[in-house]
């Protein structure tokens, strides 16, 4: 795809990337309605600026996420400027957007890896449970839990790389 100037290009872009864009929009805006608005605005802006998209510079996915990031900032500002929010006198704690994007990518990658791997990572790492306890609960040797942690991290890395993550 050389540019995003035809309606069918936008349609193809929507088919390929709307799920991820929407998932991130929900994650960062915390509201399904606003997320829909954000995705809609993202594709409209992409369409209007379609001639500026250059696949030599970066992937379509990266470009769309960059647009979405701006849309989310704009929506966040619009929301923050509403008197109802300002009346509290306290700025809501907002996760920086870059970090929110990375957090969402890690969560999405965790959802994409196999159930066995996800389970051991959730129990041992996020819930800080001892390997022996998790092994007993799952009815497997402790060594299996350890190897699932290893393969789980490897799978997670692959899933993150598929989403464009580079370290």
């Amino acid at each position, binding site marked *: 795809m*050389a*540019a995003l*100037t*035809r*309606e*069918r290009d*936008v*349609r*193809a872009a*929507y*088919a390929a990337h*709307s*799920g991820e864009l*929407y*998932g991130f929009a*929900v*994650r960062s805006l915390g509201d*399904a309605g606003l*997320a*829909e608005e954000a*995705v*809609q605005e993202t*594709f*409209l802006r992409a*369409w*209007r600026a379609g*001639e500026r998209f250059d696949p030599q510079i970066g992937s379509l996915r990266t470009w769309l996420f960059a647009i979405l990031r701006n849309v989310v900032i704009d929506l966040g500002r619009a929301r923050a400027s509403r008197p109802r929010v300002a009346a509290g006198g306290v700025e809501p704690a907002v996760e920086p957007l870059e*970090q929110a994007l*990375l*957090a969402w990518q*890690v*969560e*999405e990658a*965790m*959802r994409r890896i196999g159930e066995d791997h*996800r389970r051991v*990572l*959730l129990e*041992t*790492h*996020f*819930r800080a449970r001892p*390997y022996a306890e998790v092994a007993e609960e799952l009815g497997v040797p402790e*060594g299996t839990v*350890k*190897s699932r*942690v*290893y*393969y*789980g*991290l*490897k799978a*997670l*890395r692959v899933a*993150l790389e598929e989403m464009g993550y580079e*370290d």
Partner: protein
Amino acid sequence: MRTDDHREWRLALGAYALDDLPADERAALSAHLEGCPECRAELRELEGVAALLPLADPARIEQPTARPPADLGARIEAQIAAEDAKEGRKRRRRVRLWVGGAVATAAVAAVLALIVLPLGDGENSPAQEVSFHSVPKGVSIDATLEPHAFGTEIQMYVKGIRSGTLCRVFLEDAGGRTYSAGSFRYRWGGDSEAELSSALDLSQATAIGVHAGARTFVAPLSDATAVVPGADIDPT
């Protein structure tokens, strides 16, 4: 170092990267790492991922992936179409050359045309472009009709209807007889240009219609405009 030991150490690298190993095992694996560049390289990769894990919220991980509403794509499509119409940007409307796999269909249709249909002036009539006007807001249907010896080649451009809708296209002659031009299923996200053909000669056709799900839309060809072959008014 024995191969089995190496394999065992390697499987412990995930727990090492997450700092989950008991002190004695950690010390032993550290000793192995000093002498094993392969494990050191692998550990670096795993540590990169392990460092990201604290960003994630386990409660969110266990929630199902959020999916956009099924009609969001169609809404975006309708809005883009509205803007497109307003700005006068024109979609690519190239009259395509007759190529490839369509030839077989053409041959069959040509034989049928010889047997059943009165012969018109065939390829001498110009290609026609027609927009359907009697459609609901947000929906647009356009067609390009091109004359051939076998009948008429039709390209349909549909937008704004529900994804998955079955569309059956037909041509109508002056006597009100209809001639099937085949069917296609409209898919949001797919290629919405359907290429179809009918055995009715374009010069004999007076209207084009489409049964889209339960609804039928018809556009008289008296509304059509002639297309200059090879013309391409897409700005790209």
